């Protein structure tokens, strides 16, 4: 038997066909030494410790989840934890041991996010549709309370009479009144502390700590002032003083309708996620519901988008293609230059080349934005000696500026991968070509470039997909500007699809997560289709090898 748990392939099973020669004595000795050196026991302890930590975290998470009633997530955590233990304590499952961590993180950071985005795309989640119906109702009821004008502040004591909470009120005349949710205020004999009634026979007065402990009951406590409901009710927000409120909305739980008591308008739940009156007026907040394909229909039929959508789409493709091409060719050119053995101090130049890659793109985009300012920017003031070139404010110049900045940001990456790929091309092929009398350009075009593309093409496709959604550069450099003041939405001439979607879904104070998710799914489909087609075509390159 093997001596470590991980080692599932024993000599017996591996050599089961009998074709492999039996290990010699020396081989067995060597195996023994290797075994001891691998520190089976130490590894085992380490493994147990690691698993112990994982289990401890899982148990802790389970405990928290169960106490807060998140049963589904608790079940998932439990199943995953058991699966992990089973896999790592098993003597087999070698592939699973390697794959499990990756799969867990994949599920957590990719699959979950994608599934959730997909789910949100089918809901009306956004401003005004933020929570559950229950929350919307309680929030509407709370905000419909209006303090009766010029009504006094009533000092109160919260009293508990046989489990029912009531308010012991001192009215402005100094008389003590008591009432509960059902029982309107009535006079009562009470003990006074100074001017304030603080206790009553048959009830216990709540201390402040007790008031806090029963917050829920106290926020529900509304003592009618009289038998006439129109006079309103006393409520205490802090347990020591009460105010007289009337409610302008009334909720009928059975019929599921809200009624505005001042105008008599009835708002009912018509399945749109908000109480709506007959003439279409909505009471907000509403609540979240699933709306099927509504968001997708809206995304493609929105009349505000028709006009800008065409040029934004064209520009998005142009931006992505030109960015990939320009960064690739500049990176390739520099890689070839710095790959030349005759160049001195290549190492230092290479470091300098990679610098733009090392600076966060947020930061460099902002710095570029400052340098490209028309009246005060470094480029116009210093390099062009006070010229006023509208780098970021003219529609065409802004597009060129964005491409320049993205070239600056992107070429080091291409430089790095091209340099790696170039070094992997065998020298003998080039030498053979030279011997056959090929010129350098022919060697590059017919030999180096095709071989390079075999390894680099998939990265170019990935780079296209990245630039297609390059939100950072646009948002930080121009924020889509200069604005197209003829467009009905605040879209600009350098907006990509993704930044336009951001503006449409998150303009002003409205946040439309449902619509934004629908758009991102549509953009995902576009990018995925392009990537699939491109990958199919690059397969033909692989036949070169």
């Amino acid at each position, binding site marked *: 038997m093997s001596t470590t748990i991980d080692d599932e392939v024993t000599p017996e099973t591996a050599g089961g066909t009998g074709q492999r020669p039996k290990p010699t004595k020396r081989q067995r000795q060597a195996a023994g030494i290797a075994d001891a050196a691998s520190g089976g026991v130490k590894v085992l302890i380490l493994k147990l410790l690691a698993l112990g930590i994982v289990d401890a975290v899982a148990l802790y998470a389970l405990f928290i989840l169960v106490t807060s009633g998140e049963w589904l997530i608790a079940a998932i955590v439990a199943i995953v934890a058991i699966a992990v233990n089973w896999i790592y304590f098993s003597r087999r499952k070698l592939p699973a041991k390697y794959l499990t961590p990756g799969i867990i993180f994949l599920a957590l950071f990719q699959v979950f996010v994608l599934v959730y985005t997909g789910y949100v795309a089918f809901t009306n989640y956004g401003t005004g549709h933020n929570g559950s119906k229950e929350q919307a109702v309680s929030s509407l009821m*709370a905000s419909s309370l209006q303090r009766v004008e010029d009504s006094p502040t009533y000092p109160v004591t919260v009293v508990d009479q046989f489990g029912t909470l009531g308010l012991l009120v001192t009215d402005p005349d100094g008389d003590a009144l008591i009432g509960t949710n059902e029982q309107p205020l009535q006079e009562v004999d009470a003990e006074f502390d100074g001017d304030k009634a603080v206790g009553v026979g048959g009830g216990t007065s709540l201390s402040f700590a007790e008031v806090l402990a029963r917050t829920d009951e106290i926020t529900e406590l509304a003592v009618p002032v009289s038998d006439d409901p129109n006079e309103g009710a006393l409520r205490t927000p802090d347990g020591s003083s009460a105010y007289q409120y009337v409610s302008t909305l009334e909720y009928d739980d059975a019929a599921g309708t809200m009624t505005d008591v001042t105008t008599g308008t009835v708002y009912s739940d018509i399945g749109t996620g908000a109480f709506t009156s007959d003439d279409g007026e909505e009471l907000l907040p509403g609540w979240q519901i699933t709306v099927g394909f509504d968001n997708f229909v809206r995304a493609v039929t929105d009349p505000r988008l028709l006009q800008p959508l065409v040029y934004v789409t064209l520009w998005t493709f142009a931006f992505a293609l030109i960015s990939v091409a320009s960064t690739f060719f500049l990176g390739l050119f520099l890689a070839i230059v710095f790959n030349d053995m005759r160049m001195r101090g290549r190492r230092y130049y290479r470091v300098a080349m990679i610098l733009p890659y090392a600076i966060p793109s947020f930061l460099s985009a902002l710095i570029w934005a400052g340098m490209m300012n028309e009246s005060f920017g470094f480029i116009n003031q210093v390099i062009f000696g006070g010229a006023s070139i509208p780098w970021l404010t003219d529609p065409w110049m802004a597009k060129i500026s964005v491409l320049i900045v993205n070239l600056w940001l992107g070429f080091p990456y291409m430089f790095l991968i091209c340099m790696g790929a170039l070094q992997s091309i065998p020298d003998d092929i080039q030498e053979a070509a030279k011997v056959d009398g090929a010129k350098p350009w022919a060697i590059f075009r017919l030999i180096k470039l095709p071989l390079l593309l075999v390894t680099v093409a998939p990265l170019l496709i990935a780079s296209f997909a990245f630039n297609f959604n390059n939100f950072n550069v646009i948002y930080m450099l121009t924020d889509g500007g200069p*604005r197209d003041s003829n467009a009905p939405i605040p879209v600009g001439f350098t907006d990509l699809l993704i930044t336009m979607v951001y503006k449409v879904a998150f303009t002003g104070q409205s946040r439309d997560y449902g619509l934004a998710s629908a758009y991102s799914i549509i953009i995902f489909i576009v990018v995925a289709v392009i990537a699939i087609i491109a990958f199919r075509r690059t397969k033909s390159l692989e036949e070169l090898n």
Partner: protein
Amino acid sequence: MRVNRKSLLAAGAVAVIATLGLASCSAGDSGSDGEASSSGTLTVWVDAERVDALKGAAEAYTEKTGVKVELVGKDNADIKDDFIQQVPTGKGPDITMGAHDWLGELSTNGVVAPLELGDSAADYLPVAIDASTYEGTVYMLPYAVENIAVLRNADLVPEAATSFDDMIAKGQAAGLTQPFVVEQGAEGNPYHLYPFQTAFGAPVFGTNDEGYDPTDLQLGNAGGEQFAQWLSTQGKNGTGVFNTDIDGDIAKQSFLDGTAAFWLTGPWNVGAAIDGGINVAIDTVPSPTADAASPFAGVKGFFVSSESENKVAANDFLVNYLGTEDVQLELFEAGNVLPALSAAAETASEDPIIEGFAAVGAEAVPMPAIPAMGSVWQYWGIAQADIINGADPIATWQKLTADVQAAIG
């Protein structure tokens, strides 16, 4: 033999795991104690710069009532969206710090609970209470009132300007080519131009008894068009006083370098000016007309979550502890913004800078918090920027009004 040793080890490991598990359980227990008596903890989201200012009040409250106050420092830019997203899940805080212009959005999303200031409402500056009220209900405990004013370099121009033209004339007499700077940008900055617009009698919305009325758009009235024309004469094709290339940093630099003597900005920039060795005086905004130029007032305050399970404690803490002069002054020290409580505002106004801002603030109007304002911001700045850069003022202003009206619906 080895197998035996391993099983021993395995047994030991099981013991280790069990201990760890138990330890985590017990840790969980103590954690859940906190959860169970959660009526004893108030979670407050605070702008990270102001956590220290609230520590004293939080400790005093804990001492007095036994309620723990947990101050969570957050990045100001994230608070609003995080609050809106987390309150419905029940994971949000009990109280959050915020600004009054969030109110429309918070209320539309149903995440704030009304707040009863009771009789103490009279102790605050009127503009603070107006701003804290949305559709007739108070939702916010105000702690600071912020507005812009003109910072004057008193070494260059010793006397305050009486009107907009006087300001430019005084600056030019001091030998400056661009005597007045105000933060703009490619997309304009209507917040900073609003005082001039109000001087022409063109507020954004009319008001009714519940506050700003979204159905009464005043932006495009005759005064608005006069303002547009005036703006156009001060832009690229006119005097060049307004320039969309001047952003916040450039404006600041020219004031610090002494190439501009007047800077229309907020109290957040005063520190930099004083540190830069400028002899700063605060003036009201010089008006281009006979009427006062009123800037927007932004009021900062605290909101109670609609899903808070500790509303009583939250209310009590806000109204009776954060609404005191001491705490309001502490917050003032942290941010140098005029306190919303009248008594604290008076104390703070002993500082001539604060007094200057307070004098301008007396003319200020609360920035509208209604959701319709979002549609205004979208089109407002770009239209002003276009006018500054030479677009036809009347046509551009009319298009702005039409776009805003269409967006409000």
